């Protein structure tokens, strides 16, 4: 195992232990159970966003894009809103959590493959067009979701509203096992594909000459990204810039294009940032839900810095 990845794993382990045990009071059983749930949620979300971002940057041959910038999570929010609008509050609440999530993930994967597969298949070289199309799609999905939210009744709107703002401290316990299972499968699949991802990152002409089934690989990668984005969006809501910080850190730490190292590093960094950040905010600063705001703020600044430095690719 690579030393840097091992060190990251140790950092994450220490942060997780600190999160679980710091300032634990008399009612330790109850507190530990509560914290373990939140910790598991953060680890799943961090790993999902980290791996999804690296995968998406590989498939789009671009280091400043994240699935969120391209409107992936807006698509998920639109699906959620459409579901609430179609079924009503009670119908939505009556749905079994597991089947609902599985169906959403499947629809997400298909929609993402159809939309972004077409886009990446032909226009991948044209970065400006890619970003513009992604931003426009994101706006379209958000507007559609907003339109649905306006015509639905206020009770249903309250549900939708809760779903469409990011919060790392509000993690749905019933959904967690399903989301964790889906994320684990997708991350494992990504690890298994890491050698092929290395070849895909060389660009289409070279990858095809080396015998990679480039189009099939593009679709498979997009499907994995869709699953991972569904997981993180379902658990904490849409996060736009977090993935950018994670992939930026992973790239500068690993300093190699090998996905066998990049993917585990991104998964561990994603988890570590969330756990350490939440630790600082909850225990040191005594704040409840500001982490998502700070993460987005820092990520947004990082995005601007990348743009200004001209690191488009």
């Amino acid at each position, binding site marked *: 195992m690579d030393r840097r990845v091992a060190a990251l794993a140790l950092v994450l382990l220490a942060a997780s232990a600190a999160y679980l045990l710091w300032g634990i009071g008399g009612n330790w059983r109850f507190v530990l159970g509560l914290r373990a749930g939140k910790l598991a949620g953060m680890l799943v979300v961090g790993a999902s966003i980290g791996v999804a971002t690296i995968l998406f940057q*590989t498939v789009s*041959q671009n280091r400043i894009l994240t699935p969120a910038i391209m409107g992936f999570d807006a698509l998920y929010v639109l699906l959620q809103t459409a579901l609430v609008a179609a079924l009503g509050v009670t119908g939505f609440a009556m749905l079994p959590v597991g089947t609902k999530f599985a169906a959403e993930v499947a629809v997400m994967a298909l929609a993402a493959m159809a939309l972004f597969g077409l886009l990446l298949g032909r226009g991948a070289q044209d970065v400006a067009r890619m970003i513009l199309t992604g931003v426009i799609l994101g706006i379209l999905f958000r507007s559609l979701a907003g339109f649905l939210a306006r015509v639905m009744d206020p009770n249903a709107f309250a549900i939708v509203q809760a779903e469409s703002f990011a919060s790392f401290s509000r993690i749905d316990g019933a959904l967690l096992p399903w989301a964790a299972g889906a994320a684990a499968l997708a991350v494992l699949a990504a690890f298994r594909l*890491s*050698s*092929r991802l*290395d*070849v895909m*990152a*060389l*660009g*289409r*002409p*070279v990858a*095809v*000459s*080396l*015998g*990679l*089934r480039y189009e099939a690989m593009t679709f498979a990668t997009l499907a994995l990204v869709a699953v991972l984005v569904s997981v993180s969006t379902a658990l904490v809501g849409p996060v736009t810039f977090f993935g950018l910080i994670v992939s930026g850190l992973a790239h500068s730490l690993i300093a*190699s*294009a090998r996905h066998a190292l990049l993917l585990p590093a991104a998964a561990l960094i994603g988890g570590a940032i969330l756990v350490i950040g939440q630790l600082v905010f909850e225990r040191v600063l005594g704040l409840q839900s500001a982490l998502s705001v700070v993460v987005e703020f820092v990520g947004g600044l990082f995005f601007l810095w990348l743009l200004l430095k001209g690191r488009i*690719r």
Partner: protein
Amino acid sequence: MIRIDNVSHRIGTAPILQGIDLTLLPNSVTALIGPNGAGKSTLLNLIGRLIPLQEGRISVDGHDVTTTPSRQLAKVMAILGQTHHAGSRLRVRELVAFGRWPHHLGRPRPEDQAAVEAALVQFDLAGLAERFLDEVSGGQRQRAFLAMCIAQDTDWLLLDEPLNNLDMAHARALMARLHGLRSAGRGIVVVVHEVNYAAAWADHVVALKGGRVVAEGTPHQVLTPEVLGQLYDMEIRVTELDGRPLILHHV
């Protein structure tokens, strides 16, 4: 043997290739020549399955390029396009090592590493092996891509203008190396602009113009004032040096 049967290709409504019939033999260097827009690169990319075949059939050593799995074709032919750009930031050695990927699929064996080192030495890259691709010159980067293709160890090499960024010494060295490779049972197809390289090193020359084969044959048959004059629409003097045509196209 590469067989090209009645291949036509169009981009939008513009015809790029029209009814190409060609047989390219192993154990030889075949040079594709012709003016800009003749369809040379398109033909090479069609053989190398980089663009989908629209009409006609192409087979490489009996493998139909549209139906044979890409991975199997990667052990039969390697193609290097005109633009040399790697999506990821790689060291020279890492790039060359990708040439072995079709053989080991991510688990390099000792013989793969040996092949990579041999290719690095062959292309004068051993001293640059640890440099990043964006830290070397255009010609050196091009040599790294060529070394990757050589490391792939295929019977067919398809190279699109491989001499573009190379200085005189490296250009001649590359042509000599390709000339030497063909004796090992390999076939090499190169698109060249400088016809003198075709004259000096090719066994077979195919002249394309306007998407059609205008002439093919040995350098002596194709590189004549008449054929070249018609091909490039200019008057060209041809003399002879050491039994090979010498084209004086620059005077």
